[in-house]
């Protein structure tokens, strides 16, 4: 189901509010909101601002290097990118049927990462919203505030 993105007809005379950068999340993003003078929202965008060009510069590299390179796409989900690349290499080297051990190993790695990234996101980044509330005092709304209040 696809629909035209709500795009403001005349963005130039709308008021711009930006959440720049989006914090307490892993990754680079910026949210811009355009409102009219009655605070009605006409357009909201989440801008992914980081462009690095991995798609291009992994070309020309030895294929067994790529899984290790693409880990650096993301610091919290390197395993996913590594395994995605490994999956691509399976096709290249003709390893169409994974040995049971290999499959279990990959699943285990995925679970391990999910555990680590969820725990990290939940406790380090997201918990201040849940424990202190979305509109709580900015200076406290972080892991340090949590550490002081709930050691």
């Amino acid at each position, binding site marked *: 189901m696809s629909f035209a993105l709500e795009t403001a007809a005349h963005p130039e005379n709308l008021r711009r509010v930006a959440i720049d950068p989006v914090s307490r999340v892993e990754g680079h993003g910026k949210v811009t909101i355009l409102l009219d003078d009655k605070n009605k929202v006409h357009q909201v965008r989440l801008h992914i601002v980081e462009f690095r060009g991995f798609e291009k510069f992994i070309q020309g590299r030895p294929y067994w290097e790529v899984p290790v390179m693409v880990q650096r796409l993301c610091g*919290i989900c390197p395993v996913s990118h590594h395994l995605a690349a490994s999956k691509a290499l399976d096709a290249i080297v003709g390893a169409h049927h994974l040995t049971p051990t290999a499959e279990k190993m990959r699943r285990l790695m995925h679970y391990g990462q999910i555990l680590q990234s969820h725990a990290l996101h939940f406790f380090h980044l997201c918990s201040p919203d849940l424990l202190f509330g979305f509109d709580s005092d900015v200076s406290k709304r972080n892991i340090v505030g949590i550490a002081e209040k709930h050691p």
Partner: protein
Amino acid sequence: MEAATKPKLRVATTSLAGCFGCHMSFLDIDERLFDLVKLVEFDRSPLTDIKHCGPCDIGIIEGGLCNAENVHVLREFRANCKTLIAIGACAVNGGLPAQRNHLSLASILEEVYHAQHGLVDGFIPNDPELPLPLDKVHPIHEVVKVDYFIPGCPPSGDAIWKVLTDLLAGREPELGHGLIHYD
């Protein structure tokens, strides 16, 4: 850790063209985080909601410079932080993203936005909200003066801890075998 007699040092961190791996590794110092927070308080950081870096004692920069936004943020940090630390291969020597430097930016943008299979009449994004990429990726010491470096991709939690505690105690940071890694 001696008791916090001195006023807390103000620390700001950011990730420029990084992948946040160094910040995650920073959080790997685990329970020592509680010792650290006795000595420091955080200013702008992906871990807090402070959006702009005020006057700080230490600025920790992860990630190299891929686009104009990175330069703005880096300059803001340099202007406000007494001491600047480059953490991770990207900040120290350009890291993985710098592997695009031998290619022309045009060929990269063409490949990603035009030539990719499955992309119907793709076009290179020109929304003014998006920062423009630099023609080459630079480590941060090539744009501002950097005081200390923690190499690694990512540097281990212990390596980060060692450098931070060395600095907090006023010593020249030393890593030595086992802690110093570039990969």
